[in-house]
């Protein structure tokens, strides 16, 4: 069987400088920035992030231990309720259900959907002609750059119960996709909306594989699966993990399905961002909404840590 690439052990070639964690020392400081000037370069961005992202986020942390509401008596005089909101979350069926739906949604739309389809597109396009490749890429990218509200309308027209395009094509007149298959619908919707990112990143990753290795695989007559398994994946494992992390985090926080189903019917598509939006802004339960958001951020943190762990294990 085909060779296991010897370069697997040194993931990047000498020309690529490597990732954020690997570099030690200031040997790369080609422009002679120095630490103080480098800090000055970083500072403006950190100030912006600090004021407009971290500061509101910390404030949210504080809100999470109050019973503050947008309106009503609790708006005038919020009380400190300690960890009640967090304890509520653990026993709140609607929250737990929402968490479960989010896991399903992330797994099928991000990992099984966007990543697998995105990779396959990148893999297939790699060999495609000069005319097909840009055309397909553009189609996939358009689905990503169109404004969310426009995309929502496109899908409402596609899935409409009465005269929707899908029913016309499949001859399934009267099928209310958004009601009868709500989760499947928003999963397909999110695959449509987000595959571009995976496709681009995997495209870049595939381009970084030394052509000689693919050539070798071909010479020994390796099939597609064998090539993928023995040459491609070992080379791009780092990319796969990064894409997985980014896509998972983003999908975890995606709000656009709200425009399609508003969390319904009967909360069947009430993924966490939608649930928190309805709770915090529509129902005005700011304290609870803040606490639930924090739980969501903690879950994100766990995902990121698991990713880091896996990445580190790969290196040692």
């Amino acid at each position: 069987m085909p060779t296991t690439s010897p370069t697997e052990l040194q993931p990047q070639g000498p020309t690529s400088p490597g990732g954020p964690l690997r570099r030690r020392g200031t040997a790369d400081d080609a422009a002679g920035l120095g630490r103080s000037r480098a800090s000055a370069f970083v500072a403006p961005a950190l100030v912006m992030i600090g004021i407009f992202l971290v500061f509101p986020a910390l404030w949210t942390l504080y809100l999470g231990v109050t019973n503050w509401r947008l309106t009503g008596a609790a708006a005038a005089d919020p009380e400190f309720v300690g960890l009640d909101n967090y304890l509520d979350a653990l026993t709140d069926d609607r929250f737990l259900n929402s968490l479960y739906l989010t896991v399903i949604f992330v797994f099928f739309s991000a990992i099984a959907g966007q990543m697998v389809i995105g990779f396959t597109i990148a893999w297939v396009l790699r060999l495609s002609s000069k005319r097909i490749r840009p055309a397909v890429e553009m189609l996939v990218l358009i689905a990503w750059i169109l404004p969310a509200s426009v995309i929502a309308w496109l899908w409402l027209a596609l899935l409409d119960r009465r005269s929707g395009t899908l029913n016309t094509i499949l001859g399934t007149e009267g099928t209310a996709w958004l009601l009868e298959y709500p989760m499947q619908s928003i999963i397909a919707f999110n695959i449509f909306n987000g595959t571009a990112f995976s496709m681009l990143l995997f495209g870049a990753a595939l381009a970084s594989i030394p052509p000689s290795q693919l050539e070798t695989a071909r010479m020994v007559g390796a099939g597609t699966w064998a090539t993928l398994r023995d040459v491609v994946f070992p080379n791009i494992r780092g990319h796969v993990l990064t894409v997985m992390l980014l896509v998972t985090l983003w999908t975890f926080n995606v709000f656009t399905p709200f425009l399609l189903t508003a969390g319904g019917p009967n909360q069947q598509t009430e993924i966490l961002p939608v649930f928190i939006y309805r709770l915090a802004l529509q129902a005005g339960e700011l304290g609870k909404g803040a606490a639930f958001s924090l739980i969501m951020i903690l879950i994100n943190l766990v995902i990121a840590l698991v990713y880091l762990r896996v990445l580190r294990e790969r290196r040692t």
Partner: protein
Amino acid sequence: MRTFRSRALAAAVLAPLLVVTACGDDDEAPADEGADDQEEPDDGEDEPAEAATLTISKNSIRGGKSTEEAEFIEDWIIPEFESRMAEEGVDVTVNFEGSGADDEDYKTALALDLSTGAGADVFAIDGIWVGEFAEAGYIQPLNQIYDGVDDWDGWSQINEAVQQNMSFNGERYGIPGGTDGRVIYFNKELFAQAGLPEDWQPTSWEELLDAGRALAELDGVIPIQLNAGTPMGEATTMQGVLPMLAGAGARIWEEDSGWQGASEPVQQVLDLYYTIYVEEGLGDPLLQQEAAGRDNSFLQFSEGQIGMLLEGDYLWRSVISPDSDLAPMENRDEVIGWAKIPAIEPGAGVDGQDFVSMSGGGGTVLNPNTEHPELAWELLTFMESEEALLERHAEQPRITARDDVNAQLIDDPLISYIAEEVLPITFYRPGFETYPQVSVALQEATAAAADGTTAADAAADYQATLEGIVGADNVAN
């Protein structure tokens, strides 16, 4: 919410920030425009009266949602008011801040503004928001904002029950903008085909269902569409649960006992949903779950595919009127009939009534933080004056809050019917801060019942949710 925290921090970080961002932003701060206006020199007038600026905010926008209302304010109210005040020597500029978003989003934006002491001087809110806004201190009784409020001659023209809609704890918080009533609309042509009378008036739920069963014999006709589920929002509560609940003999909130839990009337209502949507299939349960389900029900009703629809006068005057662009019916006056909503049995409704209805409506309030309370009140009363309302509703009559205006305006058979026959038997929602959440809980219960959950189970779930919202002590046993 206290904001001193942010003030200190903001001050500390703001200065360097603006230096940093100055290069990256090509934005003209529109706030400057207002400042310029104020600095304009007087045109040699004797009085050094400082120009006042007032802002009106409503959830309507020219060219979009409720465009007529926005146009009326911008094209008539504002110029008229400004010129009249100018004649009196008062220099005032009025701005209109339209929104046109979802009602919930409009409410969020309002509440955010008010929580920071900002917001328009005069703004519109729904009657059911009065309680929660008042409890939060976002609005105050009108006579605490301006002394002369009680002297307004318009109050005598507004029915006490209608005033209640914008009142809380016995205090007036705003001037109601009008009211409405709900009836059962039916398609006379379909009724004729099913052998039902043209002047149909059910006196019990059983007669209502009987008519539905007769209509079920016709091909491609949905006999009864009774609003259910959360996508319809408040329409489910007002055109579904609450009128039926009143017909079963209960108000959702009673002064001496509290909120209705899984009581017998609530179970009877949920059982009605179960009967219509599950047991006998007299309604289309999917239609109730669609995001645009209510609009589709209008459309299907106007196309003769729905036999009976419980709706407010809004359906008649704005949706199926021949000049509407939603679901116009050329032959509306000939084809569509209406009937009062019956109690479950004659005499079984609230207060022993035979027939019931629900009414709602919004109103306009003053911002407690307005810099010009007197002028703002002047503007508000002008907006709700006989003259302005006649001007506003001349083309499309509706039930305004003022009796003098109604008397001159209403010549439409249905609107008169509602004003004369329905308003005397109608009920209003309780203006408590928790009401909107209770309403959602009721919507969820109807969704469950229409989806096949038995009335007892749906009611039990509802009771649990209700206890979480208002506390178990406040639920009637």
